[in-house]
């Protein structure tokens, strides 16, 4: 995988993970243009497209688009399930995840992704193992800042649209 982007329906980038070395300018330009391309596509269209010299796989979950640019020889369908598994991990960790969770806890979203994918390849596909690793890390954390907060969106927001 070359990179993964999460962005909102309004085109705001929520998470970006680059597995190939690119300059900041280049990343911003690529991100901006790809987001526009995908937002311009209709709902029932194919999840795969050839864009420039990239193979792109994307899927929309509620208000968020998950989009991966993969290598020529990578498998499109399994990439769709990489996305889904990541969504499941976020969902399990945050408990019915929504876009705001990812905005306010962006660092957690990155940590979970690093446990799941490393260097653009699946590192651990077991949901239990990934979550255990994250939970263990949280155990090492003092909990004094933790507080309960009301859910901002309805639990149904995690559903693929």
């Amino acid at each position, binding site marked *: 995988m070359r990179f993964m982007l999460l962005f909102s329906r309004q085109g705001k*980038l929520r998470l*970006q993970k680059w*597995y190939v*070395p690119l300059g*900041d300018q280049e990343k*911003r330009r690529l991100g901006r243009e790809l987001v526009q391309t995908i937002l311009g596509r*209709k709902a*029932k*269209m*194919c999840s*795969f*497209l*050839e864009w420039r*010299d990239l193979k792109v796989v994307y899927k929309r979950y509620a208000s968020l688009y998950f989009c991966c640019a993969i290598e020529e*020889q990578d*498998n*499109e*369908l*399994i990439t*769709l*399930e*990489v996305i*889904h*598994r990541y969504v499941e991990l976020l969902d399990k960790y*945050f408990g019915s995840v929504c876009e705001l*969770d990812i*905005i*306010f*806890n962006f*660092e*957690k979203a*990155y*940590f979970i992704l*690093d446990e799941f994918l*490393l*260097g*653009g*390849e*699946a*590192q*651990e*596909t*077991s*949901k*239990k*193992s990934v979550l255990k*690793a994250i939970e*263990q*890390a*949280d155990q*090492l*954390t*003092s909990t*004094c*800042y*933790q*507080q309960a*907060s*009301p859910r*901002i969106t309805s639990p149904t927001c995690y559903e693929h649209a």
Partner: protein
Amino acid sequence: MPAVSKGDGMRGLAVFISDIRNCKSKEAEIKRINKELANIRSKFKGDKALDGYSKKKYVCKLLFIFLLGHDIDFGHMEAVNLLSSNKYTEKQIGYLFISVLVNSNSELIRLINNAIKNDLSSRNPTFMCLALHCIANVGSREMAEAFAGEIPRILVAGDTMDSVKQSAALCLLRLYKASPDLVLMGEWTSRVVHLLNDQHMGVVTAAISLITCLSQKNPDEFKTCVSLAVSRLSRIVSSASTDLQDYTYYFVPAPWLSCKLLRLLQCYPPPEDGAVKGRLVECLETILNKAQEPPKSKKVQHSNAKNAILFEAISLIIHYDSEPNLLVRACNQLGQFLQHRETNLRYLALESMCTLASSEFSHEAVKTHIETVINALKTERDVSVRQRAADLLYAMCDRSNAKQIVAEMLSYLETADYSIREEMVLKVAILAEKYAVDYSWYVDTILNLIRIAGDYVSEEVWYRVIQIVINRDDVQGYAAKTVFEALQAPACHENMVKVGGYILGEFGNLIAGDPRSSPLVQFNLLHSKFHLCSVPTRALLLSAYIKFINLFPETKATIQEVLRSDSQIRNSDVELQQRAVEYLKLSSIASTDVLATVLEEMPPFPERESSILAKLKKKKGPGVVPVSELEDGKREGGELNGGGDRGPDSAMSSTPSPSADLLGLRSAAPVSAAAPSAGSLLVDVFSESGAGGPAAAVNDDGFLRFVCKNNGVLFENQLLQIGIKSEYRQNLGELPGFSASAVPPLSVPSGLGDGDLNVQTKPVEPLVEGGAQVQQVLNIECITDFSEAPQLNIKFRYGGALQNITLKLPVTINKFFQPTEMAATDFFQRWKQLSQPQQEAQKIFKANHGMDTEVLKAKLLGLGTALLENVDPNPENYVCAGVVQTKSQQVGVLLRLEPNAQAQMYRLTLRSSKDTVSKRLCDLLAEQF
């Protein structure tokens, strides 16, 4: 109220994020960010005793600001400080910042590497993983220099925790991709390969990505992974859906690992070990079978995971390209997907079938889906799917369906998306040229192309149609008539005017007899377009006008009038002005004879690669256009502008289908003409596969296999393999793909003996690395006809010992054939003309191979002649014609092959104007059937 997370919330951060979200405008956001940056800067500068939590919070804020798209130029040092914190979350944020905002500041890199080194040696798996993640995320050369030696040790050490192994494997992969020279597996190779056997599925899943990448670069060192991968795959495929517990994904056992295993196997040829291969074929069959079983879940995740494995298995089957049964099953499966309700599956099926179409085993099976694919091109709502359908139509096109496919692509062009029009135009132009049997169809197609999508017709395309019309005298009249009609349209594309101007200027005389297209009508038609055209087109038209003066003296006065007008002779454009002045002068002072000489019909264009093909290759990049498949068609399309008495100028080289029987080296057979040949032809794959004989030190006449084909493996032993790729045009041959791939380093000076051939070689590198390929190009010119093949003498040193291999180059007289199409009457007339006894050579011999019609046809086409239909009164017989092009002379050759199926015998008769040619061809061919 902002949402605050589990774990440790950072309240200040949440408030800041909330503020940013509440900003009503971009300006307000920037203002808020600047305020925060100032605040953080003062905190970092002022209060030396900033606690870990605050530092973490501010670093996190900086990261957030950066991810919003703003530049950050400070805070790196504070982030590095966090790395050495003994609080996990502080360390974690430090690493995240470094991963995202790595800075090439060398002082900083040293500090970062120090911190990483400490964590790697901490023996705390959580810290080790953090450090490895950071290395994998940054992946810089500095990091590779510092850690590429250490990580393999961590990866294979017995006491390393599984989670650390997983991170180490992928970390190493990233470093290897960035700096392959720094990652040396060496002594670790076998232990890394054995990670495929690890009990922990997660470790296997991570390690296999590394192994796959390493195998691509060093296939020999890692080849033991094949049998391990097969047994691992076999265990997964045969396991029940719950056996693998958490590695089962929606009832599919280990889909990620399965896909990666199948991908790894694609780095290698089919396993040589029969048992391993049997097991693998069983796996592939099971996967194909499972596709037919009812789904275990209705969830899309289930079908995606299952089909991901299925597509990967199909890729492997296509990669092997050796199991006709599996290939056909794969094709049928994809055929089902073509009609699936899921757009994604239709897309992938179209894509996958494209590669299947180039396999000779499945090409026909793919073709049966033509209607579905055409339907997809017409009805798919998503342009990316339509694009795939167009690609597939292009890939499955051959002579039998070219007219239908070209017609469908043309009609699709009328409504095609702008983004893909140019490519579509190129493809239509290429197919039309490649498979044209009659030129009127070709001309119609290209003119339609200009009419429908003129803006997207690049120069290469219209140059090409002109080249072909110029080089083919039987299409010139038709072209003139058609282009004249096309120009009648009130609005026609400028490209049409260009083609029209050029063709009428050359061949307008061919239609001038018809009063509806008399010279003046033609001129007025062209000139009516003149004022709407750009300067280059006007210049072209002026040249057409002067040609008119030569062709039709009656137009001279009218045209001189035009040239003399101020708008031409005083045109502000220098080029137009100059042409007008010169042409006017030329037409006034030159005598008819001089004019006729100066303005003579254009000579045929020299032969070269079709420029449109080159353009498509360039556009799509190498590898995207299946080149072999393109060349495949050249033979069939070869008559388009090859052959004929005029000196053909084919841009298409005579390259018959690449052989599938590349490795089927046969034991040597005697050269003597009457002896039966053990040589196998490419078409014999089914009947003779697996009969490969031992490699000989001298190929003697293994070259007989190359009489009817141009590519293949000429020689192979333990040290090296020599492959041949060749192209011939008239009396010139090129063997550009003469390649040797060798196991050990060796040196290859080579010498060639030649007689009636002029053979030139280009020097090669003196040293060949093991496993590497070198190419040596041989250019061959046929001076006069010849019987003895040139010899290739290869001398090299291997392990100190001098090796000497002498090979007969598969260059035979028939390679210099140009096919000649002719009607029955012409054929018999010429046959009679060549009736002197020495002009004929005849042999009656027993069939050495099957007498299948298609096979025979393929061989005769491979020979280089044109196979003439409906000439011989007996439909069982084959009749061919061609011209052997040598530098000194051209030798017309007629061939007749009469099979007698009952007696399993052939009678072969050759007639040519030169006795040695008849004799030699007869000898050569008697070995082939």
